[in-house]
């Protein structure tokens, strides 16, 4: 059913949503939609990445994203190597560029990188010969998360045009928020941000979004509510005074959700802080919560991204299998 299809991406990396066109995003989502089907049958294996080497390079621990990429790579037949910072020489003082040079010598085909600093994926992409996928860089971008969120929305709602999407919580530190703002705006949705002013980045209104500090106002008439994770270390008085205050004003509970449209969908990139940014009664309500679905869409989306990048490799004849 799938062979090497036509080209999808103009570049040989996926570093962010910012540089993607509407056509590229649509094509990626179409392909991901097909992979949802493949993932639901007993024989999930494809040979599209047979012989290819995929390295997961995670400088920041992330069980969810790393296993999602690992599974995506394996289902497409690639050899997958997981490298975490604790087992690498980075913790012994090696610079990021040294690491890149070393990795390059291992001749991987695709490098998936997660790093605590913004711009790390971009830097590696300039130093390596392989495709680089940004699996989250600092507070900058997390493109596959935005794509899987978009896939989840599109499968439920069909289209993005006119959808009101409220992104709530720690916008300041969130790469998920930045990628989602870019993607959803491109696709015609109306994006709102809701957060205390300490968690809103400067001049956020310049991103083409509407800013709210009262979450009920932000949720009023919303089709989609995206909750963001609040890092525990940001709760003790630095950005917000306490978890109980945060939950009272910015935690998604039934009371606040009542302001949204009746058929609202609730999303969360995980892992959730129950009783901090989201109430269990909402998180576990299958009528509104699509949080588990997001995880499934994550694998399919990453398969689509790896497939699309592999098409570029084949086209350039680089490291041909």
């Amino acid at each position, binding site marked *: 059913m799938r062979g090497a299809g036509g080209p999808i991406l103009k570049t040989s990396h996926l570093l962010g949503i910012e540089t993607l066109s509407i056509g590229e995003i649509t094509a990626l989502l179409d392909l991901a939609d097909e992979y949802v089907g493949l993932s639901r049958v007993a024989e999930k294996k494809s040979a599209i990445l047979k012989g290819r080497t995929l390295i997961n390079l995670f400088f920041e621990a992330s069980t969810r994203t790393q296993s999602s990429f690992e599974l995506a790579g394996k289902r497409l037949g690639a050899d997958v190597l997981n490298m975490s910072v604790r087992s690498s020489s980075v913790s012994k003082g090696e610079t990021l560029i040294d690491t890149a040079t070393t990795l390059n010598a291992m001749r991987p085909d695709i490098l998936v990188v997660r790093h605590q600093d913004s711009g790390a994926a971009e830097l590696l992409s300039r130093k390596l010969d392989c495709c680089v996928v940004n699996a989250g860089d600092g507070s900058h971008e997390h493109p596959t998360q935005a794509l899987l969120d978009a896939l989840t929305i599109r499968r439920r709602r069909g289209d993005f045009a006119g959808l009101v999407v409220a992104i709530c919580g720690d916008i300041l530190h969130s790469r998920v928020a930045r990628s989602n703002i870019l993607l959803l705006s491109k696709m015609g949705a109306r994006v709102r941000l809701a957060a*205390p*002013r300490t968690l809103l980045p400067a001049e956020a209104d310049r991103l083409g979004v509407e800013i709210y500090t009262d979450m009920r106002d932000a949720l009023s008439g919303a089709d989609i509510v995206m909750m963001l994770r609040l890092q525990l270390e940001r709760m003790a008085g630095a950005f917000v*005074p306490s978890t109980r205050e945060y939950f*009272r004003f910015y935690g998604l509970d039934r009371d606040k959700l009542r302001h949204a449209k009746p058929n609202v969908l609730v999303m969360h990139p995980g892992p959730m802080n129950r009783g901090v940014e989201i109430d269990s009664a909402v998180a576990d309500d299958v009528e509104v919560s699509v949080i588990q679905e997001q995880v499934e869409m994550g694998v399919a989306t990453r398969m689509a991204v790896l497939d699309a990048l592999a098409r570029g490799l084949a086209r350039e004849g680089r490291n041909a299998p």
Partner: protein
Amino acid sequence: MSGARIAFLNARLLDPKSGLDAPGALLVENGTIRDFGPRLFHDGAPAGAAIVDCRSLALAPGLIDMRVFTGEPGSEHRETLESVSRAAAAGGVTAIVVMPNTEPVIDEPSLVDFIKRRAAATAFVRVLPMAALTHRLAGEAMTEIGLLLEAGAIAFTDGDRTVANARIMRRALAYASTFGALVVGHAEDPDLAESAAMNEGEFATRLGIPAVPPAAETIIVERDIRLVELTGARYHFGQISTRGALEAITAAKARGLPITCGVSAHHLSLNELDVGAYYTFRKVKPPLRSEADRMAMVEGVAAGEIDVVVSSHDPQAADTKRQTFAQAAFGAIGLETLLPAALTLHHNGFASLLRVLETMTSAPAGVLGLESGALVKGAAADLVLFDPDEPFAVDPARLHSRARNTPFEGRTFQGRVHRTYVAGVCVFDGADDVGAR
């Protein structure tokens, strides 16, 4: 009493908000102002009402004092909510904004609730609690501003402490602005002010007292103006004392920033020379300044550049004041001298009577977002009946505060409170010459 009708006849009605200054009458019914005006009761007093013949004394909205320290909880030997409210009532003050600098510090919702309950049970005037801006006033972690607002905190302050760290202050202001909360700041660079006991200058040099320069105030004022510009927070400088601070604030207001400021009656009435022979009752924070700075404060009030006049009532027990000047605690009481001291500006020709009253009625009400502080039909009958001209000699033994640390001992002002009403209830009756029939 509050269910009754009270007719105030032959009064000089003063309302700074509307500019009213005319002879007239005022009717209180069920604790609220039913009616008032020059022509009211021209045809005679209403039947069934208690009559107060004001004999041309001034009848004005009760005063709102935005800066009051108490000792409850934790230092009840200095002052309780009950004793401070007696002092307030005697001073014509019907609402006091109390500071969170207690033990424990008022930094969480249950403690705001405690203050409100204690005040409801024991106080004679309205008590409006401020909550701490940072946990334990340590200047490190912001408090639960949203929950504290819901509990009834009227504003947020670290009292007489400055948040030294600009990053933390910025975040606290940004967070406060999320809820539209008012932040009341104290402007004194804590490092420049370390171990200082008075204003830096020739007199401190002669006395040999460690001192703090006026720049310590200006530096923080200018910093916080920049942070307000960055965050949009509503900001009130609790009390300023220097010309430099006033100039910076006036310029910031002209730029449209949501900034207001206050000055204490002490800083309008006294200067650094009044420290005299190491007089610890005049050791206050910020310190009494030069005569030039004092005059700048007076002119600032007259010009409307300084919004609010406060008492900065800070009761200290004998053990903290019977010390060397360096070791004595800061603070002076002021609730009962607030009105007469402020009226000096009127008597000396710097400001009109209505302007002086405005700084203690409608102006603080405006800063705090209250409806009170004005004569309005239907509003709570919080009123002060006073003689603006009658001599008032300050005798510490006759003050109602539990503390005695007035900086005005022996001084004679003009302006004496005769009666004070809160919601139509007389909470202070200090004069024999007002006819109550």
